[in-house]
Each structure stands twice: as C-alpha cells, then as structure tokens.
C-alpha cells in the first residue's frame, strides 16, 4: 500500500487555496474599510473630548428633546405597522381574492420611493397650501411641521417592513392548522392567538426589529415634513444634522453614537434570531 495523495487535493467544489485566502483577505479588508471604519469613526468622534464631553452633549435640552421625540415616534409607529402587517398578512395569505399580486406590489412600493419624495408627498397633501392642509390648520390640527407629519412620514418609510417578513412565513404555513382549530370549535380570535401567532412570532419579532431600527433612524422624509423645529419637532437624526451644520461635532456624533449603539443592538438581536430560529425564518430568507 502506498502513501499516495499526501498532497491533499482541493475539493472539487472549492477554489485553490491561494484564491481562497485572497478572497477571504479581500472580504475582511473590504468590510473593515467600508463598514467597520465608519462605525468606529462615530464613536471616536463622539469621544473626541472624552466621556465628559459626550455626556455634556447628551444633557443639552435640544438633544434630550430629540431623543424623547424619536422614542415617542417609534413607540407609536412600530405597533401600528405591526398591526397593519399582521392584518395584511392574514388577508393576503388566508384568503383568495382578485388583485392580490397588485396589492403586494403596493405594500412594497415605499421601498422604492425616495424618502425625500415621501416627505414631499405629505407636504403636498397636508401642507398649508393644500385645501386639506389649510382646513386642518384652521381647525388647529396641523400635520406638516408637527408631530402627526413625522409619524406619517415614519409610517410611510417603514411601511413594508413587518408585512414583508411575515407574509412569506404565513404563506408557507398554509391554512390547514387554522382550519383544524376552527373545526375543533375555537373562535376566530382564539385560533389567531393560539395557532397563528405562535407560528409567526419569530418572523414578527424580526420584522418589528427592522421596522424599529428604521423608524428611529429615518432622516430624509422626516427632515422634509418636520420643519426641524428645535425642541419641538426635531428627531435624533434631524438634530444630528443641525448640530453638525453648527459645527457642534461632538454633540452630533454623540447623538449618532447613541443611534449606532441601537443599530448594533438591533444587529445582535437579529443575528441571534437568525442563528436560533433559522428554520422559522427560512421562508423569508428565500424571498
């Protein structure tokens, strides 16, 4: 018996070792330069004047008002979108009706509309120069340059997030389980809470996570409709812009760092969900 094949041949479905190392090296360098470097910059710039400088920035009344505004918006927009997403998924996956494909396209539409154009639409609809807007302002219910406008802008931008995560999962699961529950005498709501919701909970959580990240971070649409009034309609991202343009670099980057930490938390939770519940999210990943 001879000792052949000691030079371990390359597996048929892989590249030669050199190419492999080069590609891995490329991936590491690419991600470092394009993704990690900007992220690190945020924290480095925030701490340029030490922790004290960053903490001072967070104590600015404008910064605190912006943080409150952003949290409030997310706290309202995310549940609305989750409720919409569940309703849309239920209607679309449990029933057959005409125009369904078109409806799905409509739900996806905000993905391909520029945030600024989204803001523009709201200004045209509810702004002082429109009939509807004029009436609303006359009746003391301003939408543009006020809280409702920011909420609507955020809703528009994050609109497809939850629906698009749970529709594929519910599509894959079909209707048999719900039908079985009904034959066993469960009511519609009971069926939903005991059968449907447990099946989609991880996908729902996943969608809510992405929706929340985007809701807190939305800039373009909010910048247009909010009027960026300090202490009143400024959100964290728009406040970042104002600080930055006033050369209050540390303040801008400190707020940015808070949002960046939130993004990192989102990524962490998202990765955990993907590793733990890969099977239940599988339908989504395949599109």
């Amino acid at each position, binding site marked *: 018996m001879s000792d052949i094949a000691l030079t371990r041949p390359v597996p048929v479905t892989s590249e030669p070792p050199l190419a492999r190392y080069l590609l891995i090296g490329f991936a590491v360098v690419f991600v470092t330069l394009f993704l990690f470097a900007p992220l690190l910059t945020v924290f480095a710039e925030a701490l340029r004047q030490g922790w004290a400088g960053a903490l001072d920035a967070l104590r600015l009344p404008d910064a605190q008002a912006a943080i409150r505004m952003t949290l409030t918006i997310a706290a309202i927009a995310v549940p609305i979108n989750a409720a919409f997403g569940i309703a849309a998924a239920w209607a679309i996956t449990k029933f057959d009706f005409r125009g369904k494909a078109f409806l799905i396209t409509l739900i996806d539409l905000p993905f391909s509309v520029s945030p600024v*154009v989204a803001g523009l639409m709201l200004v045209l609809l509810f702004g002082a120069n429109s009939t509807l807007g004029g009436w609303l302002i006359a009746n003391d219910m301003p939408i543009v340059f006020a809280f409702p406008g920011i909420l609507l802008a955020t809703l528009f931008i994050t609109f497809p997030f939850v629906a698009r995560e749970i529709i594929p999962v519910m599509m894959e699961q079909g209707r048999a389980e719900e039908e079985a529950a009904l034959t066993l005498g469960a009511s*519609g709501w009971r069926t939903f809470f005991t059968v449907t919701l447990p099946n989609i909970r991880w996908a729902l959580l996943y969608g809510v996570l992405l929706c929340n990240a985007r809701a807190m971070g939305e800039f373009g649409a909010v910048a247009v409709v909010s009027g960026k009034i300090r202490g009143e309609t400024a959100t964290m991202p728009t406040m970042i812009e104002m600080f930055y343009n006033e050369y209050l670099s540390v303040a801008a980057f400190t707020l940015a760092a808070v949002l960046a930490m939130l993004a990192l938390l989102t990524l962490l939770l998202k990765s955990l969900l993907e590793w733990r519940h890969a099977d239940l999210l599988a339908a989504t990943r395949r599109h």
Partner: protein
Amino acid sequence: MRAGILRSPSPLPGFGLSFGIMMTVLSIVVLLPIAALLGRGLMIGPADLWDMLNSRRIWSALTLSFRAALIASLFNLVFGLMLAWVLVRYRFWGRRFIDAAVDLPFALPTAVAGIALTALYAPNGVFGQALAPLGLQVAYTEVGIWVALVFIGLPFVVRTVQPVIEELEPDLEEVSATLGARRIYTLRRVILPTLTPALLTGFALALARSVGEYGSVIFIAGNIPNLTEIAPLLIVIRLEEYNYDAAAAIGIAMLVISFAMLLAINAIQVWSRRRIGNV
C-alpha cells in the same frame, strides 16, 4: 367588497376586519400621499412640468443621482458577489461577525452613516489624509457620493445572492469538473449564469434605493449646484423656498424612475422564473 363577489369562499374568519385594516392604513399612509403628488402633477400639466424640469441644474441633479447610483450599484454587484461567496463557501475565524456586519447599513441611520463617512474622508479625516498624497479627494466630490451609495447598497446585493449560493446544488459543480472543466470555467459558465437572476435583482434593489438616497449623501457630497447636488436635495431646497410646484415636478420625475425600476425588478423575476424554471 363583500365575501363571495371578489373573493372565493373560505371557512376562515376575519376577512372583513383584516382587509379593512389593511386598506385603511394603506390608503392613509401610502395611497393618499402618492395621489397628492400625482394630482399636483396633473394640475400643473405636462407642458409646464417639462418646462420646470428642463433646466441645467435639475438635469444635472437627476443624471448625477442616477449615474452615481449606477456606479455604486455596479461596484456592489461585483464586490457584493465576492463577499457573499466568501461568507457562504469558506469557513474562517470571524465569519459570523462579518456576516452580521453586512446588515450594518440597514440598521445604521443614514444621517449617522453620512456624518461618519464625511469625517472619515474629509481632508483632515483618517482616509482623507491617506488618500491626499495620491491626489484623490473623496469628500465633497462625486466620488464621495459613490462611497456613500456603496455603503447603502451593499447589503441588498449580498443578501439577495447569499441564499441562492447556499442552495446551489454541488452536483452542478461536480459534473462540470467530471466533464473536464477547470474551476474558473465552472465558475464562469455554470455558477455565474445560475446566480444571474439573483444578482440582477440585488443590483436593481440597490439601484432603486441609491437613486433616492438622501441622508448618507448630503453630508459628504458638498452639494455644489450642477456638480454634486443630488436630485432629492434639490427637492428639499425647492420646498424650503416654498416653491411647491417645482418640488413636485422633480418628485414626479423621481417617482417615474422608481416605478420604472420596480417594473424592471418584476420583469427580471418573471424572466428568471421562466428561464431557470425553479418555481
């Protein structure tokens, strides 16, 4: 809209409620605003619309938005594919970390990305200083816009292609090798064509997102009219001047571009399904 007319009967309850909620939210949040923009366009009329758009500044802004998005998406097409390949096919220390990091542009607010990239590439920034001796200026030039859009678009390509690479049948690569093909030939003639539909979809998604991108771009762009002023910024400027008609005109032009790209994405999907037949 009662059951039985538009939909086939189903034993499951809640159609009225769920359909009602869906249509209400959809109408208020999406349909009404879009109607407002299109309605404004109709009121202005096509001729005036064209007159308003037909200026050098708007033309430059629209072509800049489209050109930069195209360049950045092409870049992402190539490097996103390589990244996706490495993440699926190779096992190395830190792979999961890099995999998770690919979603950073989805999770990081655009304004944050914008100021961070600007600080990095500004003449006194870390990258800016490193590139200056090479005569390269990134911040406040069109190249800066490319960099921002590469950041924004990268996950679209990677995340669209990745699952398709995961599901490639090893048989195809193996049979190609038994037929005498070298690895590079297999990659080019077997793998690449199989990935093409996903690559095109990812490319189109990245492009659609980049064309309208605002937050990450305005800080690094410099915003010089006719040179580095993107179309969304021009809308913002017009709105700040209370020139709603001019803003609406640019908005409609961008919406048309978005719709065209949405149609293109759908067409790609239909085409690939027919071609590869993996329904």
